[in-house]
């Protein structure tokens, strides 16, 4: 009788038989991508997270490696370049004026010239010698200071270039060296040496400071990448632990009730009645600064939000009949809490967590900006902003503004994602 009578109902819903069950995660994902703004936020956030994770691999410079930082590159505007030291050479050239001759000049390996040949011959008379110094390729395009010829024999003069007004050297254009004459008031009957100094003005481009450099000559782009790493790590880790603590205490309060609940929730009230920044400031004043201390302070100021949310959700879920059913089936208390209550409390908690990560990052930046957050050796975005703050009035905006923009984009992206997640997870908005 049973089968005959009850069979029709299970067959009554043919649409359910055909339709494949949609797992909740897929439904939430579908809901999420309906908002283009949230998708943009998610993409930006993913990029930021990837940049933060792989900063050591993709950053142009390690901003914490003092050997990579040059003080002379400090406060360079965005787009300026970092050069190698310019090439320079002090050549000693030997000439025997009695005979014609040529010597190949030894050049340092970094020289932009393949070979240089000095040839000379007597220029009629014992008091002059004609010389030619030929560089291959020619030095004309090489950016450099005027060539200097020095230590010429006593009384010698050149027919090219100019002698310094009171010092001994001559400045000569490179093109003029291809043929010049040295004449002397004395007889040139001894071999003599003279010096040729070549000073390049520009080295090769090593890297471009896309976002300029800060007061210590750090590449801002690299500093921002590393700063994001620190900021995100501090935000996520502190939020995670705050969530664990808040969730456990909130659930305990909701499940056991009574005095324990009163105690926990009054502490939460007490904590939430203080401004978070004030509590964090006090804690850091007591604890001192350091990454782990900042995290500890952030955990302490944040757990209360999680505890309050967790308790309210758990109270609602606890009143539902499936919890009574689980009690009726004599399941253990831990099993009821962790397998029945906890999974049903998670969605609102996830939303709070995303928003709290953004808050934690902003709070950490504030603390660092005020100078009591992270140490200088591990600058976060807040510290970078704070470092650049003193340069703002002198027009070097990039030191402060770009980390600020990075912070802004990160927080907006997290909030966009969190907001949409809240809508997607809210069963009341389900169509």
């Amino acid at each position: 009788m049973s089968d005959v009578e009850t069979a029709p109902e299970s067959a009554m819903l043919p649409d359910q038989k055909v339709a494949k069950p949609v797992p909740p995660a897929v439904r939430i994902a579908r809901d999420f991508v309906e908002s283009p703004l949230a998708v943009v936020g998610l993409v930006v956030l993913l990029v930021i997270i990837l940049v933060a994770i792989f900063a050591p691999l993709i950053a142009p410079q390690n901003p914490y490696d003092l050997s990579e930082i040059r003080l002379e590159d400090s406060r360079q505007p965005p787009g300026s370049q970092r050069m190698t030291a310019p090439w320079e050479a002090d050549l000693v050239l030997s000439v025997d004026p009695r005979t014609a001759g040529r010597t190949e000049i030894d050049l340092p390996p970094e020289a932009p010239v393949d070979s240089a040949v000095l040839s000379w011959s007597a220029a009629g008379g014992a008091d002059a010698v004609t010389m030619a110094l030929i560089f291959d390729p020619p030095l004309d395009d090489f950016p450099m200071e005027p060539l200097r010829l020095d230590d010429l024999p006593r009384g010698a003069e050149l027919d090219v270039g100019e002698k310094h007004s009171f010092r001994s050297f001559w400045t000569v254009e490179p093109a003029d060296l291809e043929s010049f004459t040295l004449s002397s008031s004395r007889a040139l009957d001894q071999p003599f040496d003279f010096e040729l100094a070549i000073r390049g003005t520009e080295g090769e481009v090593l890297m471009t400071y896309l976002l300029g450099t800060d007061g210590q000559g750090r590449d801002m782009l690299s500093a921002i990448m590393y700063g994001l790493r620190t900021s995100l790590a501090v935000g996520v880790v502190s939020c995670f632990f705050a969530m664990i603590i808040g969730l456990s205490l909130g659930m305990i309060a909701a499940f056991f009730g009574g005095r324990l609940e009163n105690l926990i929730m009054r502490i939460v009230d007490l904590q939430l009645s203080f401004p978070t920044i004030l509590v964090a400031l006090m804690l850091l004043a007591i604890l001192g600064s350091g990454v782990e201390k900042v995290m500890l302070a952030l955990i302490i100021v944040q757990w209360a939000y999680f505890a309050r949310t967790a308790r309210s959700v758990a109270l609602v879920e606890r009143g539902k009949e499936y919890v009574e059913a689980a009690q009726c089936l004599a399941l253990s208390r831990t099993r009821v809490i962790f397998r029945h209550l906890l999974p049903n409390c998670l969605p609102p908690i996830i939303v709070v967590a995303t928003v709290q990560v953004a808050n934690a990052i902003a709070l950490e930046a504030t603390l660092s900006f005020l100078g009591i957050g992270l140490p200088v050796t591990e600058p976060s975005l807040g510290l970078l902003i704070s470092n650049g703050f003193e340069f703002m009035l002198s027009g070097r905006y990039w030191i402060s503004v770009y980390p600020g923009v990075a912070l802004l984009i990160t927080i907006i992206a997290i909030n966009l994602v969190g907001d949409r997640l809240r809508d997607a997870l809210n069963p009341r908005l389900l169509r």
Partner: protein
Amino acid sequence: MTTPIIKLESVSKRFVKKLDIAEKFARRLGASVQEHTVHAVDSVDMEIMPGEVVGLVGESGCGKSTLGRCVAGIHRPSDGVIRYQGEDVMKLRGKKLLESQLNVQMIFQDPMSSLNPRLKVTDIISEAPLFHGLIKRGEVDDYVAMTMQRVGLDPSYSQRYPHQFSGGQRQRIGIARALAVRPDFIVCDEAVAALDVSIQAQVLNLFMDLREDLGLTYLFISHDLGVVEHLSDRVVIMYLGRVVETARTEELFDSPNHPYTQALLAEAPRLQTDRRVYAPIKGEIPSPLHPPKGCHFNPRCPHAMDRCRTEAPKLKEIAPGRASACHLNDG
């Protein structure tokens, strides 16, 4: 004489709202702040024999659900003794306690909230038997399929989530979950009230089939007199936490004794062609926070006497298997 499967001896359940610190302080200063106590169930005696179907009827808020939850072991009674097969369940420990808990199961009113939305049907049904070692992990699929078939569900739906089922199917899942621990007593708390009428009939028939197949005993809580008349062997009428009348179903519906029962039956909607005027019971059901003195029904009772306002009538046997709590029977 067989032992009743469930016996309640003056079971009471009170919900007390304790004073908070501010209120305690105010009372110390002389303010008239008092603890709020709700007498949801007020010294109820009841016996349910094996194989019996007892209908528990009453208005909303009369404590019938609370009584059901006490029987099912979800609430601890504030006073009184609940005996399962003659043994006080409060004093049972260990294996016997577990046995008594599992043997008394409950089916809930709201088929949506009574199923954990994050578990698949197979997990909902198999969790408790696995947890208590009634079945082994390897037997889960067969056991779940068998249980689902027993309640008229297609076993191929076992990998689905509750929200993918209709109301009636969800209620069947709830029944399957209760049956999975092999109970012999089931408390049905308004188990069909949330279903539409055609589905109600199917689920009620399922209850009756299961009773025949598995020899179950039911405590059937409802405010629907039609359902109770159709289903039960015996009916218990509750009013504001107290039992006012209990009788075999036919006797009760033929000749109600207590004025409240009479009023209830008179107002039950029926399919009758004559246009009769309904005269609703006068007044609201009094607040269980401040129940009236004497007989709880006296402010609304057409036969109320002075005695009713001072002395609470006891539940007395007025005929074999029949009891009523009314002073009119004394006179």
